Every structure is written in structure tokens, then in C-alpha cells.
């Protein structure tokens, strides 16, 4: 959903140099509270996923029925749900489900997409055309519908949802990788590397890859953010993790039944999603600035 700027960047017609230059100059104005906060948010959310017990003393699955649907208080920071489970604990323990889903999705998109892009960018015209038409097809279908096609094929579940989201990001990675390979390949030092007897894959590994890394990382960060969004959307629709699991999208779906009496159940998990996605996008922007 958010990859529009990158499509613009990959399209040959749009002059993206100007845009990159402005972001570098912005980067040079040293201090960025927004960027620091973004890294902080991602750091905290990642810590939620790795060591959740450090952040909350409450159990995410067992609640006390006496304390059900309590408003936020000092004991239960973000309130409790219909079974008396602490919402903050469920968000903290749910981070691992949402985030690992997003990581798997980005990994799928990155590996498959980059492979396709490198093959297209470094092969002859015919293979290039065939691969890029395939990418065109992937781009023609909106990400959510593409994910749903994969879900209907693989069935519901955490891993399947992650793969489905990853497939939807293959096209962006493929286009970027191809553009980078073509760009770097034409540069003088790569020609020099070939000229001094470098083998194809050695040159690719030694020269092309390091020079494309920043752009790829920036896209990965951007896709990480949109993967969190997509994973939570699929979770909300009920295609991801099964119910007792505290996945962020699923938390919102469950809280929806008590929307008139317990506003906190839907509001807070959503705010965590927004914070994580916003931070990932901000980090992506700063990485993109550095690649110029």
C-alpha cells in the first residue's frame, strides 16, 4: 500500500535525483528527533517480541474473570478484555506474532524479488522481458487481493499469512533489484572490474551488491512497515493466527465486539500498529537519503 514512492522511483520517466538530493540535505541537518523516536519505537517493539516478560507481570492468556472489561488503571495500564486478560500484556506478547510475520514476509519478498530482479537485470533481453512481464502482472493486482489469492490456496494460519504478504511485495523488490543491477552494471568501475578479468558472479557479489545495499535496505524497511499493516489486516479478517493467540490485528477484531462499552480494546492495539508502521516508514526514508 505504501510502495508508491518506490514505484515512482523505479519508473524511468520520473527524475528521482532531485528527491534524493533534498533528503540528503535534510539528513545533513544533523539532529532528527523524529528519526531517534522511530528507532526507539522499533527497538521497544522488538524487545516486546524477544523478552516480553520484562515489560509486564500479567499473563497474556490466563485472565481473572472477576476483572473483566476494566478500563485502563494503574494495575491494568491499558485495561482488560472480556475474559479479564490484561490488554497491555496481550499487546506485548502479541508483538512476536505480528513482527515475526512481518519479518518472514519481508524475507520472502526480498529473497524471491531480488533473485528475480538480478536474473532479469543481468540476463539477455528475452529472459529480462519474461521476468519483468511476470512482475507487471504482480504489480497489476492490488496487494491485498494478491495476498487473498495465496491465502485461498495455502489456507489460514500465521505462516501462510506471512507468505501471502511476502508474495505481494515480490514485485517491488524485483523492480528495484533490476534497476540497481542495470544502473551499477553500466558504471565505470564495474566495467573496469569486468575488464580486469572479473567473473560475472564475483563482480556481482563484490561490486554490484554492496552498492545497491542501501536502496534495498530502505525498501526492506518500507516493506516491513507495510507488512505489519497487511499482517494485521489479514489477522483482523481472521486469516492469520487462530484466536487465543494475541496477534495485534486479531486483538482489534476481538475488541470490536465490545466497541460500545470497552473503547480501549480496539484503540490501543491499533495505536501500536500505527506507531510501528510510522517508525518503519521514517527509518526507510532516512536510509533512502543515505543511498544517494
Amino acid at each position, binding site marked *: *500500500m*505504501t510502495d*508508491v*514512492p518506490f*514505484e*515512482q522511483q523505479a*519508473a524511468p520517466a*520520473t*527524475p528521482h535525483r*532531485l*528527491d534524493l538530493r*533534498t533528503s540528503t540535505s535534510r539528513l545533513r541537518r544533523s539532529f532528527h528527533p523524529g528519526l531517534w523516536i522511530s528507532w526507539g519505537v522499533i527497538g521497544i517493539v522488538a524487545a516486546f517480541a524477544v523478552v516480553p516478560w520484562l515489560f509486564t507481570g500479567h499473563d497474556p492468556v490466563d485472565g481473572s474473570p472477576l476483572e473483566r472489561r476494566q478500563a485502563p488503571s494503574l494495575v491494568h495500564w491499558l485495561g482488560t478484555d472480556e475474559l479479564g486478560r490484561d490488554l497491555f500484556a496481550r499487546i506485548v506478547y502479541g508483538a512476536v506474532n505480528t513482527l515475526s510475520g512481518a519479518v518472514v514476509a519481508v524475507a520472502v519478498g526480498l529473497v524471491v524479488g531480488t533473485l528475480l530482479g538480478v536474473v532479469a537485470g543481468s540476463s539477455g533481453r528475452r529472459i529480462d522481458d519474461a521476468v519483468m*512481464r*511476470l512482475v*507487471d*502482472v504482480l*504489480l*497489476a*493486482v*492490488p*496487494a*491485498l*487481493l*494478491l495476498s*487473498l*489469492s495465496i*491465502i*485461498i*490456496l495455502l489456507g489460514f494460519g500465521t505462516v501462510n499469512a506471512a507468505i501471502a504478504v511476502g508474495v505481494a511485495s515480490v514485485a517491488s523488490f524485483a523492480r528495484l533489484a533490476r534497476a540497481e543491477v542495470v544502473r551499477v552494471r553500466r558504471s565505470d568501475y564495474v566495467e573496469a572490474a569486468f575488464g580486469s578479468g572479473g567473473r560475472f558472479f564475483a563482480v556481482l557479489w563484490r561490486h554490484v551488491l554492496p552498492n545497491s545495499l542501501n536502496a534495498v535496505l530502505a525498501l526492506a524497511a518500507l516493506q516491513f*512497515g507495510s507488512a505489519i*499493516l497487511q499482517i*494485521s*489486516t489479514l489477522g*483482523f*479478517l*481472521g*486469516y492469520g493466527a487462530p484466536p487465543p493467540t494475541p496477534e495485534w*490485528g486479531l486483538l*482489534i477484531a476481538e475488541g*470490536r465486539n465490545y*466497541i*460500545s462499552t470497552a*473503547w480501549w480494546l*480496539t*484503540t490501543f*492495539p*491499533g495505536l501500536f*500498529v*500505527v506507531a510501528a*508502521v*510510522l517508525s518503519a*516508514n*521514517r527509518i526507510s526514508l532516512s536510509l533512502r537519503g543515505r543511498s544517494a
Partner: protein
Amino acid sequence: MSSRYLVGRLGQALLVLWAAFTASFVLLQLLPGDAILIKFEGGDLGLSPQQIAEIRLAYGADEPVLLQYVHTLAGFLQGHFGYSIQRGVPVTEAILANLPATAWLTALGFAVATLLAGTIAVVSSLTGLRWLRSLLRGLPPLFVSVPVFWLGIVLIQIFSFRLKLIPVIGAGEWEGLVLPVLTLAVPISAPLAQVLIRAIDEVRTQPFVTVARAKGASSRWVLFRHVLRNALGPTLTLAGVLFGELLAGAVVTETVFGLNGIGRMTEQAVNNQDAAVLQAVVVISAAGFVLINLAVDLLYPLIDPRLRKTVGATT
């Protein structure tokens, strides 16, 4: 525009469409068990094997794959998208029945999104107030980071339960559309506003803008007469993407608000493994994307005279 370019561009569009259809067909063939199996052979209907065989024959489910492929392709070309097993009606019929609701939702959503994006871009470019400018320019990144389904729920919470402005049940036809349209419009407006803002910033650095300013034109005059006209082109290239995003947004929005439309139908199709419906929606959305992009490519030279002389020349 040379006719060779036209033919090449058309051919490319058709190729992508054909590939999209083929990919979705292959995907359907990979499905373990088909919808007929799920609906009729569950046992609770008490059909004899012979009756099931007759149903399979009627749906053409036992033909060789290649023949099925040709039949399905011919059907799609004539606007016949197969049968929705779950609903027991042709997919085309189901889509047509649900089309008006979704068409209204997406058309209004698009209109509101355009208005929102235009306001953000123009006001943030014109204003002399720094805080207003950075506030407005911070909105698009925020808008793309908000989950659509969550936004819908929050809007219901605020406008229906807190402020009691829109009844949850029994809202009028138009009243009931306000929140869904707003929900759909917010994420759609984000890329529009971003591209528009970037285009405005870029056009502003062009020499002809400086000339206009030097001649004494006010900043508002320059923006509307010169900058905005030139910035609309890049925004137009988003049209194809936005079509798909509107359709995808409708899936989530209609599910959250319980509206009956193509989006909800898609969501139910996934729940029931009703693959024919999903295939039709996917192919239609791909067709919309490809055709809109084709139209934009062909119309662009008409809008921007600089592109009229030679196609593909470097500037």
C-alpha cells in the same frame, strides 16, 4: 504518436492481462479439493455419487485441464466468469448485483480522497505558517500508516457511540455511507497528496516559475496558473494504482461496516474457498489497472504538449 508505439503498448497491455488470467487459472488448479467437493460432497446433502457426477459434468469440472483453460478463457472474454459454487449463481450475476454499492462507495471515497489530498498539498504550499505547513506535510505519512479496518472502528466509536451523530443501526442510505467513505478516503488520499506535494515542489524550481514570479505574479497565481497545471501530470500516473487500492480498500471497509458489495463478497469467497469469485475479482482489478494505465499513457501527450513531438525522446 507513432502507430507503432500504439500497437506495442496495446500488445503489452493485452499480454499482461492474459498472463494475469493464466496465473490465476493455474492458481485455481492448484487448489486442493474444489468448491464442488466442499459444497456437495460433504454428505449432509445426501447426494448419491451419480448425482454428484452429474453436477461435476454440469460445471465442467472433469474436463481435461487444457480444455477447461480454453473454455474459461473464452468465457472471460465474453464477460462470463464461471459459477459461484457457494452462491449457486453465475459470478457475473453476483458481481453485477453487488456492483452499485461498491461503485458508490469507491467513487465517493475517491472524490473525498482527491479533495483531501488537494487541500493538503495546496494549503501546505501556500501557507506562510511554518507549523501548519509541517503539520499538513506530516499527514500523508501518518495516513499510510493507519490500518484501514482500525480507522473504521475508531470512526464508529467516535461518531456513533461518543457523539451519537450517526446511528449504528438503521442509518439512512446516505447517512450510512459517511463513515465508510471517510475510512476509504484517508489511505487513498495519502499517496495522492505525497505525489502532488512532490510534484509541486519540483515544478516550483523550474525556470518558468521564477520568470512568472519575476513578472510580479502572486504566489497564489503562480500556484494555480503554472505550478498546479504542471504538477497534475505525475498525479495522473497514480490512477491505475489507486483503482486497485480502492478495490482492496473496499474489501476491508465493507467488512468492517457490514456493507454488501464486491468487497464483502470477496471476503466471503475467501472464507468459503469460492475460488471462481476471487479469480473474477482479481482479473477484473488487474484489467482495470492495465486499461487505466494504458489510457493514461495514451492521454498523457494530449495533456502535456511537450511529450507530443517524439515519443520516447530523452529530455
